[in-house]
């Protein structure tokens, strides 16, 4: 086959991978994973610029291409070193860190990034509100300044890990008299204070994977403001861009994800097979595999420095397939599909799209087309930004306080 430049993107091998490997080797020689205390080890790894190599020197990285991170991770995993448990701080690593890096002050980066990466400080996100879902910019939570302190009040929803979080990314309205996008400001909120109440938000699965957060005169030092006053929308957008790429666009082996359990049940239970279900299974399996290839192609584009808008497509397809496959799986299960495992209110560690029983997967998948940008909003984005079709006529350009709600 051809081996043109883009092929290099195919496996992320770049010249200085070896250099990195030896760096890690030296580091490990200096810090024996066996004898070094966990947190001490992680802080040292951060300070050595081996936390996230694509971050700047002094902030846990050394300004290398992101694609080299996998090399470092492999080495540390192979050496059995302590993990920073990224799964426990997804919003911190996936959304807060890039936002802080892009919009934070040097002092803020200094203060927040290390404990964030080591997992000492879990972050959550206070964006959505009952009245502001797809229309995030319409949010009502107010923040009022008095000297060097802001006082915030309002209700936020859909905040995962709020009950474990030390800090939150908060967008609040600081000026109701200007158009909605212009009156927002972005903060890092200390969650451990009296003005912050976290209540579990129960989903249709019976679990409470998310929270409602009620702010009542919560205090924020102006030093924790991220970006200028009134710049909250711009900062939020960069946060959300990071969110969108993170949903549905991950590397998976063939028959990974939702199709795995459906295919397994099909193979293990010949008695459940029917012609109608077979036709659906073949379509779903093929679509799932093609979606996997599309995700791989997307990552090859990124690695080759040809980023495309296909990320939104990945999330749309991810949601559709998760829903159709889990719907199929419950029907395939027949009598078993009519049962559930447990309705009692639980607080899971994180979202688990593919776990528990078919009924759970069926119900949880309904959220995939809502969370992280509804499928309707994604279609708007594709139509307007990718296809260049006319935008919806806007009727919400006046002062926020005058808009119908």
């Amino acid at each position, binding site marked *: *086959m*051809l081996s043109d*430049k*883009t092929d290099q993107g*195919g496996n*992320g091998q770049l010249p200085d991978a070896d250099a990195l490997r030896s760096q890690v080797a030296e580091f490990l020689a200096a810090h024996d994973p066996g004898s070094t205390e966990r947190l001490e080890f992680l802080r040292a790894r951060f300070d050595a610029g081996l936390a996230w190599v694509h971050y700047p020197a002094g902030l846990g990285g050394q300004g290398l291409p992101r694609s080299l*991170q996998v090399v470092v*991770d492999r080495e540390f995993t192979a050496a059995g070193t302590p993990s920073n448990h*990224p799964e*426990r701080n997804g919003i911190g*690593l996936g959304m807060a860190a890039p936002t802080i890096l892009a919009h934070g002050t040097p002092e803020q980066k200094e203060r927040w990034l290390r404990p964030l990466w080591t997992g000492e400080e879990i972050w959550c*996100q206070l964006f*959505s509100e009952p009245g502001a879902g*797809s229309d995030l910019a319409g949010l009502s939570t107010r923040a009022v300044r008095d000297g060097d302190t802001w006082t915030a009040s309002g209700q936020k*929803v*859909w*905040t*995962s890990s709020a009950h474990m979080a030390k800090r939150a990314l908060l967008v609040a309205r600081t000026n109701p008299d200007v158009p909605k996008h212009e009156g927002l400001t972005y903060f890092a909120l200390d969650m451990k204070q009296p003005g912050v109440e976290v209540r579990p938000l129960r989903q249709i699965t019976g679990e409470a994977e998310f929270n409602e957060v009620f702010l009542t005169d919560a205090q924020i030092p102006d030093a924790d403001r991220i970006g200028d006053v009134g710049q909250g929308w711009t900062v939020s957008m960069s946060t959300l861009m990071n969110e969108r790429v*993170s949903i549905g666009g*991950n*590397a998976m*082996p063939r028959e990974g994800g939702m199709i795995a359990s459906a*295919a397994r049940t*099909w193979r293990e239970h*010949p008695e459940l*097979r029917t012609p109608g279900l*077979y036709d659906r299974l*073949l*379509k779903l399996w*093929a679509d799932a*595999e093609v979606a996997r*290839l*599309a995700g*791989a*192609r997307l*990552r*090859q584009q*990124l*690695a*080759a420095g*040809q980023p495309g808008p296909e990320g939104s*497509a990945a999330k*749309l397809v991810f949601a559709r397939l998760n829903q159709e496959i889990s719907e199929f799986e419950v029907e395939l299960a027949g009598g078993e599909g009519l049962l559930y495992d447990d309705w009692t209110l639980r607080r899971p*560690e*994180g*979202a688990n799209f593919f776990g528990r029983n078919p009924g759970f997967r069926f119900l949880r998948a309904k*959220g*995939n087309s809502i*969370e*992280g*940008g509804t499928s309707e*909003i994604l*279609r*708007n984005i*594709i*139509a307007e930004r990718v*296809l*260049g*079709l*006319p935008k919806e006529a806007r009727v919400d350009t006046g002062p926020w306080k005058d808009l119908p709600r």
Partner: protein
Amino acid sequence: MTEATASEATASEATASNTTVNDAASGGAAATGFGPGASGRGRPARTANLLYGETETELRAAVRGLLADKAPWRDVLARTETGQTCDDGLWHTLAAEVGCAGLLIPESLGGAGASYREAAVVAEELGRTVAPVPFLGSAVIATAALLAAGDTEFLPELASGAVTASLAIPFAAGTRTRPESTVRLDAPQRGDERGEYRLTGTITGLADALPASVLIVPVDSVPYGLYAVRVSEPGVGKRPLVSLDMTRQLSEVRLEQVLARRIAAGPAAEQAVAAALLAGAGVLASEQLGLAEQCLDATVAYVKERHQFARPVGGFQAIKHRLADLWVSVTQARAAARYAADWLAAGFGPETTMAVALAKAACSDTALKAAQEMIQLHGGIGFTWEHPAHLYLKRAKADSIGLGTADAHRASLDVLANLPAPE
């Protein structure tokens, strides 16, 4: 822009950046017969390149330029109502001057020594214009058969564009089982002293056979054989068929005691036919991809211009969402088509069969959907003869049947993906 977040599910992987495609199975370099076979099982996994390379991009530009100049839709439409539905002039330029006829042929035989990755890109451009040339039938299917058969006599002529060939198997044949031949071997069954044979029979529903000067004819003789026939020989008759897609008109071929040379026999002949049909289906998927993209592009452009209710039709959200969904389908189809092209370039084997099945299924559905949306979203004008939309609809429908329907290709997942059918 966010209703809820579930980043935990994904952030851990998101921090890594795995850019490889973990192919479960992997392909064998040697052509296998019908069915997935197992020859490739043991070989190490490879990483498919799903992008377009520079050489492919350059080739695309050359072909697109030529077609824009030589195959505007009004000419393509007009030609469908003539007695000469294949554009020989355009084909000669494309085959000889641009070198599309020899893409798959090694330089040692006068070809370009390129691969199915480039052939697929040419197919995309031909799909975008539904240009009436026998690229698929001659430069892909017949060529693949001759390559697999180890031919050296005809390939140089094909590479130079001097000869156009066609594999005498109905376009509607699937890729999974060996199509029954309707041609018989006349005495002497073992060929005469000069090693020549005589063929008699009728094969109908052939694509790209009208412009062919050489026919590659499979015969269910003992052993199964692949025979080459020069159309100039006495006893060869061709009849054009009124086809749904007149930009790739089908025909019927009659052979009466026609002189033929055997180019492969037994398993070799069977493998040659299997490889040719699989390669054809895989490249056809890229043609469908190009067709779908063109339908999407043309429709997006139209709804931006077309005003109703004093607004561009493309500003109505229901239309926007449908076009967004279509664009999503195209992104999926492209990944599948590139995966098939890349695996075909690597040879034949189970993963190649899988890749072609996925691509033909995805691209058949997407192309048909795109052509139908093109007509619907153009409103009345798209339903008229004097508009290109119907050319795409007819090509899309014919392509969705040619070389195995989406259903047929998905059905092969029973073995390829171990998804057994119900009893």
